[in-house]
């Protein structure tokens, strides 16, 4: 899932809560400083602070978990794995560390490991919607769409229970329903996502895809153009332009389609027929 960094960012707060529940650690102050710096996206300063925290207390689980997150942000999954293994050795019930371990596996396409860790995280924190959502994604990746849909529904239920439903949690299920051709159900999910996050380009993009599938190209084009105008979200401009080419063509406006095709081609690497000596 593309917004995984957002998911582990939310985890920073969970780390604080977990830490507050235990006795004071000599590394606590440094850890809290590191966590605050992480939230501010000051990663190198955060890393220095977390190293200090671990120097003072090598078994400080929230610090080990934060170090793993920093490593993940730097695409150093080997280091993340090391930190998480250490954290889980110290505290096998650390649900967020289990979840992150699952994320490391998931992001490296190691679905067997991801499923094991996400399931464990679900056991440890049954009310955490993230574990349900990512277990759903991993389950979908290994070819079990119906089971995945159940997990997506569970993630949404858990989020609603907290009073903070997220559009990003609705969209994976909506995409799967679209793939399965269950267009009416899909529309319900997407419309909820649009309502929750009207400025999220991903939601409008999925709505545009749905409308195109339903044979409403003009409406699809309008949603697509709206999606392109928004900056929040992870859907690429390329994907939106490609949708708009087809939507405008089917809407009988090839000139508008051509504009988007030209933008896409301009972004591709041209072959320069010049020999570089």
């Amino acid at each position, binding site marked *: 899932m593309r917004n995984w960094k957002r998911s582990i960012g939310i985890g920073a707060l969970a780390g604080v809560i977990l830490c507050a529940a235990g006795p004071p650690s000599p590394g606590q102050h440094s850890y809290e400083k590191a966590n605050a710096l992480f939230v501010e996206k000051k990663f190198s300063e955060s890393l220095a602070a977390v190293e200090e925290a671990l120097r003072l207390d090598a078994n400080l689980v929230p610090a080990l978990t934060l170090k793993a997150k920093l490593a993940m942000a730097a695409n150093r999954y080997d280091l993340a794995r090391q930190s998480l293994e250490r954290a889980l050795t110290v505290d096998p019930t650390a649900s967020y560390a289990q979840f992150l371990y699952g994320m490391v596996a998931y992001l490296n396409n190691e679905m067997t490991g991801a499923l094991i860790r996400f399931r464990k995280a679900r056991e440890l924190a049954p009310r955490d919607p993230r574990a349900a959502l990512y277990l759903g994604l991993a389950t979908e990746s290994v070819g079990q769409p119906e089971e995945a849909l159940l997990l997506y529904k569970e993630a949404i239920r858990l989020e609603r229970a907290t009073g903070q439903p997220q559009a990003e949690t609705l969209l994976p299920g909506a995409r799967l329903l679209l*793939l399965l051709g269950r267009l009416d159900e899909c529309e319900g999910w997407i419309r909820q996502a649009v309502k929750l996050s009207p400025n999220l380009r991903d939601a409008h993009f999925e709505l545009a895809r749905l409308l195109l599938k339903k044979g409403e190209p003009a409406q699809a084009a309008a949603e697509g153009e709206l999606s392109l105008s928004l900056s929040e979200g992870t859907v690429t401009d390329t994907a939106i332009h490609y949708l708009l080419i087809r939507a405008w*063509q089917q809407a009988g406006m090839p000139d508008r389609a051509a504009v988007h095709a030209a933008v896409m081609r301009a972004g591709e690497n041209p072959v320069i027929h010049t020999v570089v000596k």
Partner: protein
Amino acid sequence: MVVFTGFAGSAAAPPAPPIRFEEIAAKSGLRFELQNGEAGGFHQVELTPGGVAALDYNNDGCTDVFFTNGAAIPSLRKTGPKFSNRLFRNNCDMTFTDVTGEAGLAGEGYSVAVAAGDLDNDGWTDLFVAGVKGNALYRNLGNGRFADVTARAGLASLDPLFGPRWAVSAGWLDYDSDGWLDLFVANYVVWDAAREPRCGAPEKQFYCHPKAYQGLPNQLFRNNRDGSFSDVSRASGIGSHTGKGMGVSFADMDGDGLTDIFVANDSVRGLLFHNRGNGKFEETGLEAGVALRDDGHAIAGMGADFRDLDNDGRPDLVVSGILNDSFLLFRNLGGQKGFEDYAQRTGLLMSTRQLTGWSLGMYDFDNDGWKDLFFALAHLTQLDPYLGREAALPNRIYRNIEGGRLEDVSAGAGADFQLAANHRGAAFADFDNDGRMDAVVSVVNGPAKLFHNITGSQSHWLAIRLRGVRSNRQGLGVEVRVHLADGRDLYNHATTAVGYASSSEPLVRFGLGANRVAELVEIRWPGGPPQTIANVAADRIVEVTEQVQP
């Protein structure tokens, strides 16, 4: 002139017998083991061999088999006989004899792809073998031997910009309709063993994603009609687009009488080259809607076939991909409407989501009048620890239910069809001339397979062997329509560019279902009026020579 061969058909066909195969490679003497040269270095080239060709090199009416083979890495040399490319002669009794030595086709270098076609219109099928940093053109001398004419053909010179390239597929087409076959080469990425990027954790190295390598433009070579070729990549517009070419297939997508080109690319968008008829191509993949998956994602495109799946007279496009891509199927809507995503509605999308496909073919395996789909499958080798499952996969076959639904009938296709292996190339032909399409499949570091079609159908069939006079000798690119008494029109065209890195027989085949006669066979040679034959009896190969207007 029309020549009928084969035997007349019998009783009316019962409906829907299961498509079945038996695997008979060892029994038939087709003993070949593809070697990719892997030695733990995770070199990208190891993933790509090897293509297979089905061709009748000695014109005895029985289709022979050619296998490409790898080489040692990093030398890219065929350091021993285990790396030889191999030619097997069909003894016309479903047994094969290795004739590589006498044919002079052992080859050199790291071979990946093969394209069979009669480049000089002498009636003998020639071979183009493409690979890593070196391609070879072999002219069929007609006496069982081939001559390496690469240099004389002008295909040995290095590209001044890119140097030696890495080709993964190639195909023959007559893009300028001059009656001589031209050559298209689909190139993959810039690769150097000494500069191979390293990916994965140090203790868990893996093959890099294609994004770690720079893509290459494809090449088009115009036949000069004298045994040589001119590189028209740049002039034609083909060379203006970079890709990571894997599969190439040809069809006249818009009915203008000109052959268009589709290239399946690995992790970047597909390219559709629309033939403008003036020696130039326009890339229209985006406008046509075949460049990307429906959600705008570029799949790891592998093999492709470009034929009419739904019998509406317009060629559709199927493309295989990697795990979690789903295979793509685009339905041709005609003209400016382009193509629509058809994989979801037919059931192919979700059914193939857990598969990794390489070569493929769209043929009517049960002769019911609807072309089915055969996929050669395997996940990337050494992916096992990541997936928690074997990379080896059994192949899959999908039955076409009246053009609207593709049903996975693999489970009923016989015990041999259930066996997993690291399948790669596949070529299609009727090796025993019984009217049922067979398939030969290469296996990475394992024995090749020959899937003999033993479908119990009594459906009838018709095969057209074209003989061009003004057109190219094999009639590649020529479209054929068959009208049946049950009211159906069936469409197909002659092409050998099918699947991934492979080359299939040039005959134009039709399953006729219960029809014992084709009421009308219409052959659309380029640049002339349609040639028609009425009331053609089924269950035979019909040889049709192009009628040329005085």
